[in-house]
């Protein structure tokens, strides 16, 4: 049990910070959501023009910088990259498109579940099924090939650029778009959001917390280490919501969610499959990008691009359900993941 303690503490901390961020102003069940926050950042940078979802989320800045600082202190900051970057960019796009059909990344899926949103349970089943497809691929030798050492500039480029853009939003806010209404207008105070991100970023760096990794390692190795983190997160969020009277069990009228079960399932299946091909969920990709992994950095940029596409072309769902374009995008995304999977069965000595 002792070896699970860091990841259990991280899960619990993410739960507490997420509840606090909602109490301080974030949208309901959205203390954290990597997909939604990157979507809001895309909006703030005017890469997408959906007025309700434009805000430069300081949580993302905090996650990147928290992971950067702790990895530097622990001598784990290692600039590396070159493992199929273009493929990873595209996988990032597909993952975020799936997440925005469901309306949340795997982390928000658990936060929604912890608020009593049963649509997230359907999403979780889909996510696990998607992870299962990724595991089948790994067992048959799937690999995006090795990453190699890079310069410090390459490793620190994305966290630094994000920090500079964040400072610019404070110094010259008129350069950016900010929602006046809708989810993008709901946020905790900037410094609270930043602090929340920093805490979670640092702890997730230490514990390697990953939503996809838990289910994946359980399936491949019967290793449930990372799942302890997800479980502790869920327990803390359920208890916290119950204590604050915010727990509402059911499918209908859940905040920033829809009840279209099939597309909740399929959207998250895409996220699970893509996350395993990438080597970790969107949160883990963010942390790795902070640690100097430029493959994860390019994945994050792909996610921002995917979020922009999702809103510019009407792929993202709304409270009324998935859109036709979103359904087509899930189908196309699945074909892309299938192609990436089949083309990259190249690891030597695999079981099959």
């Amino acid at each position, binding site marked *: 049990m002792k070896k699970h303690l860091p990841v259990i503490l991280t899960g619990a901390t993410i739960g507490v910070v997420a509840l606090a961020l909602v109490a301080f102003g974030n949208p309901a069940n959205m203390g954290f959501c990597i997909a939604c926050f990157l979507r809001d950042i895309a909006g703030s940078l005017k890469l997408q023009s959906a007025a309700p979802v434009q805000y430069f989320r300081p949580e993302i800045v905090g996650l990147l910088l928290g992971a950067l600082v702790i990895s530097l202190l622990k001598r784990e900051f290692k600039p590396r990259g070159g493992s199929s970057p273009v493929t990873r960019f595209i996988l990032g796009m597909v993952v975020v498109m799936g997440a925005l059909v469901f309306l949340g990344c795997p982390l928000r899926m658990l936060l929604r579940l912890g608020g009593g949103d049963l649509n997230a349970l359907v999403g979780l089943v889909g996510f696990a099924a998607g992870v299962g497809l990724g595991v089948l691929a790994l067992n048959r030798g799937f690999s995006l090939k090795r*990453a190699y050492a890079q310069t410090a500039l390459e490793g620190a480029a994305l966290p630094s650029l994000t920090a500079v853009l964040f400072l610019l939003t404070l110094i010259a806010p008129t350069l950016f778009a900010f929602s006046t209404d809708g989810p993008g207008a709901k946020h905790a105070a900037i410094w609270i959001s930043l602090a929340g991100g920093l805490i979670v970023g640092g702890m997730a760096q230490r514990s390697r917390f990953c939503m996809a*990794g838990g289910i994946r390692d359980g399936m491949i190795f019967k290793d449930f280490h990372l799942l302890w983190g997800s479980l502790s997160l869920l327990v803390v969020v359920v208890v916290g919501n119950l204590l604050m009277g915010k727990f509402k069990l059911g499918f209908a009228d859940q905040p920033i969610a829809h009840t279209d079960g099939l597309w909740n399932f399929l959207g998250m299946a895409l996220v699970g499959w893509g996350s395993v091909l990438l080597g970790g969920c969107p949160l883990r990709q963010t942390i790795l990008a902070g640690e100097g992994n430029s493959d994860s950095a390019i994945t994050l940029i792909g996610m921002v691009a995917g979020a922009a596409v999702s809103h510019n072309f009407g792929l993202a769902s709304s409270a009324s359900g998935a859109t036709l374009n979103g359904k087509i995008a899930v189908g196309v995304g699945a074909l892309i993941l299938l192609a990436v999977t089949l083309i990259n069965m190249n690891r030597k000595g695999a*079981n099959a």
Partner: protein
Amino acid sequence: MKTVDARGCACPEPVMMTREAMNEDPSHIEVLVSETCAVENITRFASHFGYAIQSKPEGEDTRLILTK
């Protein structure tokens, strides 16, 4: 003795490569890895199967020696 070069491989490939090497020669496996999380994952996996684990820094990388 079987040597595995898992440097630069993303999660969970280093552990899978180690497992494959264990199937070929269960008594002595050496794994070269570049990431701390791979060191942790392989250590957790190998200790579960009763291996003694030695870890030696090798430049920027780490060599894990698994024996039983």
